[in-house]
């Protein structure tokens, strides 16, 4: 506990100066098509008070990761998305490499990291908002892995709090569609099988799909998904390794219930 606190105390120290310093600060990156996504050591940025969407995002990341301040991070991410808004036209989707450099694009490119991070923080408490943010991420970078799975998780959260069976079913079906979209991002093809020997990809998505199909009462699809999960973990195990024997048990149970 004490070590943790020391970390946070140190991380909060060392703010630099803003202003002209930023123009020569090598840690303050030029914009690329993504307006520089990802995380930079905050103390190297010298941001005293954020002045634009990207700076709010970086401070939010600092608050979330280094200070464990989820509320502060959420506020910064909201500010950032507000300043980098597709709806308000304060950011743009880059659909072609511009003749001028990316730093001169006006409005600047839309950011995906801040939307992903805000969406993740809102996933359980406000899944509708989370889904909207994740969908914007897919407009910015349609080939980004994991985003559709996060949409699936958000719909599962909505299903868990649904007031009626019909509503729950609708959310679960939307979750299925989202996980299916994730699987399409990394399809099993003849080429992938030749290179890896893997008969199935993406254990996460198959595990989630199996559970949702069980909730939907679709035993056959659930069984198929557990089977694909086992194929996907054949050479890869799982962070939760107990899921592997559990999937085998589930298949037995589902087959048993189908024959009765």
């Amino acid at each position: 506990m004490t070590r943790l606190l020391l970390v946070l105390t140190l991380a909060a120290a060392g703010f630099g100066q803003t202003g002209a310093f930023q123009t020569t600060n090598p840690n303050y990156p030029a914009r690329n098509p993504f307006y520089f996504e990802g995380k930079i050591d905050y103390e190297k940025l010298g941001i005293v008070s954020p002045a634009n969407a990207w700076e709010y995002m970086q401070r939010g990341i600092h608050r979330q990761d280094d200070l464990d301040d989820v509320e502060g991070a959420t506020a910064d991410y909201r500010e950032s998305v507000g300043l980098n808004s597709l709806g308000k036209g304060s950011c743009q989707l880059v659909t072609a490499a511009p003749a001028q450099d990316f730093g001169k694009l006006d409005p600047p490119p839309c950011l995906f990291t801040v939307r992903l991070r805000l969406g993740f923080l809102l996933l359980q408490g406000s899944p509708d908002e989370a889904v909207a943010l994740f969908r914007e991420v897919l407009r910015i970078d349609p080939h980004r892995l994991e985003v559709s799975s996060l949409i699936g998780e958000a719909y599962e959260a909505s299903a868990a709090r649904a007031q009626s069976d019909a509503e729950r079913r609708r959310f679960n079906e939307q979750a299925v569609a989202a996980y299916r979209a994730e699987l399409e991002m990394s399809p099993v093809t003849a080429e992938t099988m030749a290179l890896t020997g893997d008969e199935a990809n993406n254990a996460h998505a198959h595990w989630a799909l199996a559970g949702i199909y069980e909730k939907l009462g679709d035993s056959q699809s659930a069984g198929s998904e557990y089977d694909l999960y086992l194929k996907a973990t054949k050479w890869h195990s799982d962070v939760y390794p107990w899921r592997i024997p559990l999937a085998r048990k589930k298949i037995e149970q589902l087959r048993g219930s189908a024959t009765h």
Partner: protein
Amino acid sequence: MSQAIVRKPRVDAVRNRERVLEAAKAVFSAGGPDASLEAVARRAGVGIGTLYRHFPTREALFEAVYRREAEQLGDLAEQLKDEPKPVDALRHWLRCNVEFVATKKGMSAALALAAQASPELRSYTFGRLTKAASVLLDRAVAAGQSFMVRAEAVSLTGHRFPAGFSQERTAYIELTVKDDNGVLVYQSGYQVDKPHPETGESAPDGNLDDEDLEHLHAVVNPGSPTSPYQPGPAGNGHTNQVYELGPDSGPDSRVFSGAPRGLVLFRNELTRIFLPGEKVGRKDAAGNDIVLDRPHFEEVFSASFANAVDNYRSLAPLRPTLYRYEIQLPAAEELQALGLKLKGPLHVHAQINFEHFPPLFMRFLTRTTGAEGPAGHDLGLLNEQSIDKFLVNIRNIASDDFTVDLVEAQ
């Protein structure tokens, strides 16, 4: 009426005492134990005489601030213990604990004296806080619930760790959670023995050092022979086949989604920013090349394929960095289906391992210099056996263990 007149000074006195304590916390936190008591009185908006009436000595003031903070923290834990989301409650409590330690830090020298003189203060705060901590942690580890593990890593070097570029020299955290009977509940930063027929390993060979971490399923294809060889991805058509996130999600989940899950690795990551119109180097489900109509950004495994490096995934020198793992315990019905009963306490083990080259990168070199590579014939430089000889990881550079109590689900 007379009662009101009598009570009023008491209310003021309590308020003044609170003001002084609040001011002292701020002043000592910023200025340390030698900060002047006049500054405390000024900040509290009271005279110095009022301050001395409440706290005759500097040590008495220190002790009162410390005791008050511990008391508030303990009260907060009591309030939070019934929160429906224990992880959020724990997070909130830890956040408040940060402020408490900031108080302690600024006054540490004086507190050492005060605590030495007052064993009661020591045992009081320790008892209050350990009780508070266990209240929150206990609630977080019943079956079916999730709990947060926090691992802190610090590089005691004068440079970022690991140094150097790209996929070579990777350090990572291997983290496991087992119950008291040794049942593996969670693993991150793990390797699995598997065959690699494309480079001459037709069956698992008992060696984990030649296995990739399970965070990303990817292959780099050497492309087709060209003459003469042209560097870069377009030269011989070599491709970066990132198929999917593996079961251990990977650092991308942490960096871009801020999710407390996935592998923690330390290295300077090769990345590529693909521009609209470019091929991403793999095919869709219909077997067509994926051609981008938006920019795309991803990790790549070949230096000639990269056009950017993410330097911020290695550890900064001398700066502790915190990584969180949100770990879900199996639900009661899942345990029942497995015929398992978890036995507490849970044993959490974290260690840092180091690998010189990711096996995936070595296998790319094997293919590049093999019969299918740009030369068009096997140069005989690398094969699975030479990879085995070359790849010897350094395990357990640093480690830590702790246990977490397991309670019955309510």
